[in-house]
């Protein structure tokens, strides 16, 4: 992706998205690598105790099943402390926040956005009025 997910989310907040929603969106994007890492640690721990995660496809699927529970449970047990730690830092306080990031929005990008929106409007109008050029 050319746009970092975080930049996208924070720019949406700057444009009026609620900070709570922005956090959920950003944290979800960030949670994926953390979850993969956690699964890797749990898989290593299980392998060290004799879990077979190699071999045929069916053997590998059987090997993954014992990991699902611990990965999900360990993620959930931390939820309460995570939410407390966020509340300590005044998360959820009403009112606007002044973010440190200013996402550059060049003139070129603005022009492209406007052209695309106009194109979209033109396409909808032409489709509705039946003037959309049908492909042979």
């Amino acid at each position, binding site marked *: 992706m050319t746009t970092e997910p*975080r930049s996208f989310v924070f720019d949406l907040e700057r444009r009026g998205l609620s*900070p709570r929603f922005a*956090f959920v969106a*950003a*944290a979800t994007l*960030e*949670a994926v*690598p*953390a979850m993969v890492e956690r699964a890797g640690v749990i898989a290593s721990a299980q392998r060290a105790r004799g879990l077979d995660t190699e071999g045929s496809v069916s053997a590998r699927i059987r090997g993954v099943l014992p990991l699902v529970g611990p990965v999900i449970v360990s993620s959930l047990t*931390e939820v*309460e*402390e*995570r*939410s*407390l*730690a*966020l*509340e*300590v*830092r*005044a*998360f*959820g*306080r*009403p*009112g*606007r*926040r*002044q*973010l*440190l990031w200013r996402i550059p929005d060049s003139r070129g990008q603005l022009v492209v956005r406007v052209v695309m929106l106009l194109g979209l409007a033109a396409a909808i109008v032409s489709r509705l009025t039946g003037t959309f050029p049908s492909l042979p």
Partner: protein
Amino acid sequence: MLELRQATYRYAGYARPVVHEVDLRVDDGEIVGLVGANDSGKSTLCLVASGLAPASIGGELKGTLTLDRTPAAGLRTYQLAERVVIGFQNPNTQRSGIAATVFEEIALGPINLGLPVTETVARTREAIARLRLEPIVQQDPQRLSGGQSQLVAIASLLAMRPRHVILDEPTAQLDPAGTQLVGEALHALAAAGTSLLVAEHKTDLLEGLCDRVVALDAGRIVLDGPAGRVLGDPGLVALGVEPPSHVRLGRSAAAAGVDPARIDVALQ
């Protein structure tokens, strides 16, 4: 000033309270240490003193928590955050999970307070300097060692410029140098008038840090007094708390028939 009066707290869904009739006052600029065995109610007492129990996690509190003469009852969690902060033992659960750099992580609290950007940056820089985190400000918070994470978690709290700070085993993952850094930062906070409550197993740290130490047993305060007196109390071991090293050394010496006074002289 942070004051608990006759605080009895019961977690939601539990029949019996974990903290019983606690009277505890932490004055401005005072550092109070909290010791006790595992399961003695230290962490719960920290949560109660922070107001998050019951404001965030529910349960039932009898008695009162007062923060600078404001009763905490009825305050929302973000209103509490403007007055009191609490740090936990595990730094991994204290990361926001949305910051790309250590700087952004530490700045999150001030940003949430709705401060102007210049003020946010000033507070963040101050917290970074207090814990000497300059070398890692541009690093990814998810890629730090346990000790670095813990320092970042504490810096994130300091950036809120709280009037009251509660720390539940803040140095659990720190090496001696990191522990000393935290000690210095807490001294500086106290000198600026902040009241601090620090739960710790490391009694050597508490002895150098605290004005007063409180010992808990089964959710009740059983010892409360000047740090030297409580940490040297003969009953401390029975409570499951390891006394500071020089106290233990003195006792071993006495048991071996060596005059403890001579060891104190030698240590000095």
